[in-house]
């Protein structure tokens, strides 16, 4: 029922990205919820999600600043995509699993990744769960059922299918959700991930954040398909397209998809239509390839503001709450940054761990070489 009308599109037509069309929306322009589609999110959950959206945005701003100051090396944010990220994570159960892309730290925090752990990862210090081996924003957190993040685009997609397929084989009810962008739909692993999921009816939710851009490449140059949801057809995979800036709609679509999966009805591709309001990462300057005017309509659809208005309209949030939250965020952030900056980098020895379970002879030798230190002179090189 949430299927976009596939037959509507005519041959060769390129549909420009728009928040209109056959799109699932719940939070209406007038600030009310469509009663037919209202997913009835519990108040506490809604507030939790909202606070996480605000924190996510706060962190994006502050981490970008840290990067500019040279205190961390890199950050990849999610400005404008908070609803797609938080709404989807909120719709899952604790037992469910997430295969992340690189932009969803808000979802990881919502699912219980320790805050300090996230900040430590940005510094790649000795407390980083990834032991300082990956770039910032590539943390890992088994306890939150959050799989290790990979930079190569798309590789997590068929892994998620396999993970979900395994749940099914084991007779477990956990659902797997995998995040990726519009660019990732061009990857090899999107293709096999959706194809295998269709054939084996794996309980997986494919959550595509269609934010209009893959670095500098716009949607129209990424694919001639009118929508990402259309791609589900190629694999016999159920597909829905939602307003990705509508927390309620994203929640609804993902909850339904997870329900379907849990009930044994197989995978769903959810296209969350949104917009990357910032640069691709701190290394990117979008001014080089897109017109700032393009952002304007999306500013009107700001996912955080929409929820804030809803909450205020329903007396669940006040300006005083905003101030309190700001102070709390600031405090937590400063403490965590301080702790991270006071933590040394990983010991050199750790470089050789975790290649294999046990250290083989050649790595033992190589570690020995490093341990002997910077011979025969100090401080050089």
């Amino acid at each position, binding site marked *: 029922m949430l299927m976009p009308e596939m037959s509507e599109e005519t041959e060769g037509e390129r549909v420009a990205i728009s928040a209109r069309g056959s799109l699932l929306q719940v939070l209406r322009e007038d600030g009310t919820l469509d009663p037919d589609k209202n997913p009835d999110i519990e108040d506490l959950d809604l507030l939790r999600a909202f606070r996480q959206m605000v924190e996510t945005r706060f962190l994006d701003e502050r981490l970008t600043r840290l990067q500019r100051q040279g205190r961390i090396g890199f950050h990849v944010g999610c400005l404008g995509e908070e609803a797609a990220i938080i709404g989807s994570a909120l719709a899952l159960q604790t037992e469910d699993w997430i295969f992340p892309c690189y932009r969803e730290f808000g979802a990881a925090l919502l699912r219980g990744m320790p805050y300090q752990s996230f900040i430590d990862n940005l510094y790649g210090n000795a407390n980083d769960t990834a032991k300082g081996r990956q770039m910032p924003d590539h943390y890992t957190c088994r306890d939150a059922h959050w799989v290790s993040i990979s930079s190569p685009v798309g590789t997590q997609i068929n892994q998620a299918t396999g993970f979900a*397929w395994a749940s099914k084989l084991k007779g477990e009810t956990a659902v797997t959700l995998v995040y990726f962008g519009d660019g990732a739909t061009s990857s090899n692993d999107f293709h096999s*991930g959706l194809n295998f999921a269709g054939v*084996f009816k794996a309980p997986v939710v494919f959550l595509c954040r269609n934010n209009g851009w893959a670095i500098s490449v716009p949607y129209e140059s990424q694919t001639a398909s009118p929508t990402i949801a259309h791609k589900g057809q190629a694999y016999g995979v159920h597909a829905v397209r939602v307003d990705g800036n509508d927390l309620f709609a994203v929640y609804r679509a993902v909850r339904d998809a997870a329900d379907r999966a849990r009930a044994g009805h197989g995978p769903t591709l959810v296209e969350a239509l949104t917009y990357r309001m910032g640069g691709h990462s701190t290394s990117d300057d979008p001014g080089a390839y897109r017109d700032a005017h393009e952002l304007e309509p999306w500013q009107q659809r700001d996912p955080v503001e929409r929820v804030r208005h809803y909450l205020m309209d329903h007396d669940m949030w006040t300006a005083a709450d905003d101030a309190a939250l700001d102070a709390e965020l600031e405090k937590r952030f400063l403490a965590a940054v301080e702790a991270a900056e006071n933590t040394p980098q990983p010991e050199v020895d750790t470089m050789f761990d975790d*290649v*294999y379970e046990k250290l083989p002879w*050649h790595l033992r030798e190589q570690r020995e070489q490093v341990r002997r230190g910077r011979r025969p002179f100090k401080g050089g090189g």
Partner: protein
Amino acid sequence: MVQALNDALRDEMKRDQRIVLLGEDIGTVGGVFRVTKGLHEEFGENRVMDTPLSEGGIIGCAIGMALNGLVPVAEIQFSDFIFPAYDQIVNELAKFRYRSGGDFVTNMVVRTPVGGGIRGGHYHSQHPEAPFIHMAGLKVVCPSNPYDAKGMLKAAIRDPDPVVFLEPKRVYRAAKGDVPDGDYIVPLEKASIVRAGKSVTVVAYGAMLYEALDAATRAEEHGVDCEVIDLRTLWPLDLETIVASVKHTGRLVVVHEAPRTCGLAAEIVTLITEKAFYYLQAAPVRVTGFDTPFPYALEMEYLPLSHRILPAVLDTVRASP
């Protein structure tokens, strides 16, 4: 060897419910080389799964399964077709433990037939161990006989690290050997000295081991006494055994089917020069496939068969400063 591999899979699948098989045509047919024959019937379609035609999909899904606590044994129909999965193998599978600080591990095996000599030509004959050895994080093994094949496949399945398991298809049916029923393991750390000798150390593996042995027999007629080592585990290899042998013989010949340049032979020669330089009485020699794609009609000229190993052995022994 096919039967030994089949036994190993059956034994292990009985022992451990977490083990599942996936690959192209491995179900009803039992694989194009019949290694999984009967297993689909015996264990059902939830343990033995025919997949769509995507090696990347097979490995990507197997990684996901392994992360979820299963122990997948994936089959790639020919190693010539493993390259669409190269990214998943070297960038994901090999790096999962490391990049997650040990948080996520993948206990799984990638089985694939390798090598020439069955008139498979250009695209059914490659022997691509080096590109997997070079990218840190994988174990790479290649048994030469049925006994080892069974014991090493069991070891690979139980190994906590991902293992690329290369099966020399030229000896799938040819190589005989007593294979005991029941459980035994051939550990993945040890090479095997299959012929003791004192004139020269010959290192080989997979199908080429038999060529090395044949050359050794012929060398005897020339008064040359070869020590032949079956490497078995290609990486991390059993350097100790090779070094001990070379310290003893003072000479080294390394044989493999894969192209010469940046192949495993170069690594072995270099390791020996690093560990036993002053014991070497002659330059180590490589006898390998040539640096061309694999040819069809001329495959017996391409392969480093006995007739190419023998002169190398004799030359090495005769060489002197």
